[in-house]
């Protein structure tokens, strides 16, 4: 039996209110794991647990061999970054919003060239100076995805990253994202309601009931 680092996350006997009951769940490193299940099933709640935005009522979540409670929550969240289900927009233009993830996590901001690349990466044809207020729902979602892509964390927790996108755009962005993640050996844990994403990209699919 291998233990420790082999599993990125190891959940044991987790209970949270009457929302989540998980006896055991292992998530491997450098893999793409998809989480599926019906609406209201607790997928977002589970991601928030992995990011330590919520603490379980019972049970344990082990990350890299150490219980989440032994980690400094801020340091952990800078390694395990979560994309929220509702894209969050901060006051300012696209440039500021793209860099804001890095600023909040105290990394140095990137130059315009890198930011423009990221926009291209998520198929967003906008200027860096554009105000984020006017963006459509799907555009905001892509901006938020580009923002955490630029943060370059070890683990991506993505909560329905393409729910507001058409099939074609979804495919283009996911193709690029997953290819890049595999190349850089990132761990991706993704909640999705799409039928195709788990089939196409997942190494492992977890169903939450």
């Amino acid at each position, binding site marked *: 039996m291998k233990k420790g680092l082999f599993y990125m996350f190891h959940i044991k006997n987790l209970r949270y209110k009457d929302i989540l009951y998980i006896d055991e769940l292992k998530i491997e490193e450098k893999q793409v794991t998809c989480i599926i299940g019906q609406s209201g099933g607790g997928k977002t709640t589970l991601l*928030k647990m992995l*990011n*330590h*935005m*919520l*603490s379980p009522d019972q049970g344990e979540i082990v990350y890299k061999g150490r219980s989440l*409670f032994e980690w400094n*929550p*801020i*340091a952990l*969240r*800078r390694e395990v*970054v*979560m*994309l*929220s289900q*509702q894209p*969050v927009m*901060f*006051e300012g233009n696209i440039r500021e919003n793209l860099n*804001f*993830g890095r600023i*909040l*996590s*105290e990394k140095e901001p990137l130059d315009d060239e890198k930011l423009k690349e990221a926009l291209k990466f998520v198929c967003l044809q906008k200027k860096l100076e554009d105000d984020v207020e006017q963006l459509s729902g799907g555009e905001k979602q892509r901006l938020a995805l580009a*923002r*955490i892509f630029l*943060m370059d964390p070890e683990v991506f927790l993505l909560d329905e990253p393409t729910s507001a996108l058409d099939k074609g755009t979804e495919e283009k962005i996911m193709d690029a994202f997953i290819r890049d993640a595999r190349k850089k050996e990132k761990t991706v844990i993704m909640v999705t309601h799409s039928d195709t994403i788990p089939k196409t990209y997942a190494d492992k699919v977890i169903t939450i009931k």
Partner: protein
Amino acid sequence: MKQEVINIEFWRLSAAYLFVLILILLVKKREIKREKLIVLSTARMTIQLVLVGYILMYIFKNPSPWIVLLVLCFMESFAVYNIFKQLHKPLSKKLKLVIVLSMVIGSLVSLLYFNLIVIHFKPWYEPQYFIPIAGMFIGNSMIGITLGMKEMIENFATQKNLIEGALMLGAKPDAATKPIVNSAFDSAILPTINNMVGMGIVFLPGMMTGQILAGTSPLVAIEYQIVILIGIAGSVGISSFLSLQFGYKTFFNDRFQFIPQNEKEK
């Protein structure tokens, strides 16, 4: 040069209440059901002021540090009680403690500095100076804390997504709440600062009016007014700053998780 203030005779004072009757008539005519409130407020105002008048007369005649301190405690408690009442929402024990400490520290620091160093009256507890100045500092700090807290608590509730969104990206709580805490501080001190702008032109402040009526030279009166206004600004600034700076932290637990309703205790 000092002249006697004209004492308003009793029947003339009673005549003032004619205007309350006019107000009631106007309200009746518009069919706004406020007669009861007007009568009650007028009665309360009258009784409170008469009582305060007699109490102050007693205190001024028998200056004692103990009584002055007692009055100070009473004013602080009343201010804190008022803040809690104005905020409506259930507040956590920790947040209540933060409010009490901010209120007391902000006003006391300003009082000590202005009483002992700027105005420099002796003895330090001279009630004629101490009590009105304390009243103004405490009253304004109370308003500042209330405005700032209200704004912060409301925005924490409505902008939960934004705060959590920032935390998820690895933000420290102070970075995640910075825009909200800043705008709350702004709301807390803005009335005080705006008040200074209109000073003397739009209105003569109550204290200055009182002093001038009592025969003080307007030049001395403005000296006091300037000092008091700056003191108020300081008191409001310190109290509001402390309440927000330590207040926002009570919305996070020791795992830096956001607790929006501020109801959980850890």
